[in-house]
């Protein structure tokens, strides 16, 4: 961990890795770290803007960018040369990102692990809620299932090892923590993360013109709501409405 931190704070070194003949991976390090993640997202924007012929899509993750391409349109060597010129060399000014406020009903049947997490840290349930909803998070990546947002920024007092036995089914829209990370789940999945609550918001809804609520680089705040408010808002999202508030980046 300390070694990772040191590397992250030094001038970023990067490696371009071959990932078959249809993808390159540009790797900035091997840690979960906000600075590395910002470099990934800066490169993602640059590659997107460069509109390189043959590039199909980019997949930004914690500490690397996967660039998927058509080998019939561009060769690995040519693409490497193009990408090498786009790699950010220092933490450049970050592009403005959206800031979301997501309502969450904590505890009870909607947050089965809230009390366990509180006990594990010698806190009360309300203190866990205050800590979790008092922080600003950053979407490190969307992955694993459609719309699932992995968030960095979980306050250290809430860092909690994952459950020893994963649950086979965790409901969509669960607000969860695992290790040093937080997440909002988008569809029902198996998971060993701790469930603190649930949002009436849907992170993935094909009926909307924007099916995915969050994107990598977005900032996220959580707002505690009552069970009654949860029911009221869930009725709106049931109809395809968005209830999370969004401020455009400044």
């Amino acid at each position, binding site marked *: 961990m300390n070694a990772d931190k040191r590397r992250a704070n030094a001038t970023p070194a990067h490696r371009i890795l071959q*990932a078959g*003949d249809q993808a390159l991976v540009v790797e900035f390090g091997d840690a979960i770290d906000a600075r590395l993640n910002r470099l990934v997202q800066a490169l993602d924007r640059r590659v997107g803007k460069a509109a390189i012929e043959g590039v199909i899509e980019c997949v930004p993750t*914690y500490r*690397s960018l996967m660039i998927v391409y058509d080998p019939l349109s561009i*060769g690995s060597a040519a693409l490497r040369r193009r990408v090498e010129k786009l790699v950010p060399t220092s933490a450049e000014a970050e592009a403005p990102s959206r800031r979301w406020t997501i309502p969450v009903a904590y505890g009870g049947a909607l947050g089965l692990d809230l009390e366990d997490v509180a006990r594990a840290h010698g806190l009360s349930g309300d203190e866990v809620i205050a800590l979790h909803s008092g922080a600003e998070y950053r979407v490190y990546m969307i992955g694993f299932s459609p719309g699932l947002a992995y968030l960095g920024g979980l306050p250290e007092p809430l860092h909690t090892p994952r459950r020893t036995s994963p649950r086979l089914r965790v409901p969509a829209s669960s607000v969860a923590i695992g290790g040093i990370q937080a997440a909002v789940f988008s569809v029902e999945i198996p998971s060993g993360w701790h469930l603190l609550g649930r949002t009436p918001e849907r992170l993935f809804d094909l009926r909307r013109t924007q099916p995915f609520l969050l994107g990598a680089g977005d900032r996220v705040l959580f707002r505690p709501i009552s069970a009654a408010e949860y029911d009221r808002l869930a009725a709106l999202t049931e109809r395809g409405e968005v209830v999370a508030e969004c401020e455009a980046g400044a």
Partner: protein
Amino acid sequence: MKPAPAHAVLRVINPGALATLQDRGRMGYQRYGVPQSGAIDTLTFAVACMLVGNELDEAAIEFTLTGGSYVLESGRCRAAVAGAFAVALNGTTVPSYRAFDLRAGDMLRIGSSPVGHGGARGYLAVAGGFDVAPVLGSRSTHVRSGIGGLDGAALRKDARLRLRTPQAQSGPPLALDPRLARHDPGPIRVLPGPQDDAFAAAGWEVFLGESWRMSPHSDRMGMRLEGARVPHKSDYNIVSDGVPHGAVQVPGDGQPIVMLADRQSTGGYPKIATVISADLPRLGQFRPGDALRFARVAIDEAETAARELAARIELLRSALRPAGILV
């Protein structure tokens, strides 16, 4: 004015082990966690499309191990099966790789692969394509996400598939000499990486030196292999990153998994190597218990092979003949 022709509707009588609508896959949404999906054996899929005059981005039914049976409820249509499978139309054998016309009431039965032909996946295409709306730019089904295909699910008994009316006038049914569509034999070629450095020489020796058996627990997401144990250099967990098509990930038990079309967009196991694009279609025809080996190649060879596969598909198009000429 002539009355509008009845819409052709194909009803599933029995979908076999697994039948899903697939096209070339869903591009551009992996950054949102949406798997690519698409036909696993894109070569055989392309042949099915060409046999009925469809573009290669049209969807076909991908079936697994056994084809199942279908009845045309109404209308008429031209169809074809690609893959080494026994096909019968109203009880009479029709060769695969040969288009035929269906009328209302006709029953199509697709059996399993003849012994020794090793077919694991086949494709049933209809001229004009299936009338399902694309989801996020593709008709491919991703069952786990409930996206695409018919209501986001695998085909079930009594599912009814509406067909679109073909744009072009159909000439005589086309056929292809099945020998031309066979996959090449030999080891599956891989490029090292992206996490080749997570494995020492001992790991590489096992991975390339041993023969692997395909596990029955394989699916469209991953082809699980059984055999010797590939040792990691140290840790077998990495910080999750993108999972490329054909990535060979090695979890803690040392048994490799080749990540196929339905793979999740990100994952946390090290990927020792990645299967080259030209050999991905071949993976679709392995059956549980089949043996395979890997061979390491360089990027130049992978890129040459990709161009050769594209050229081969164009060559197959020009090798299509009116069905009567082939016996």
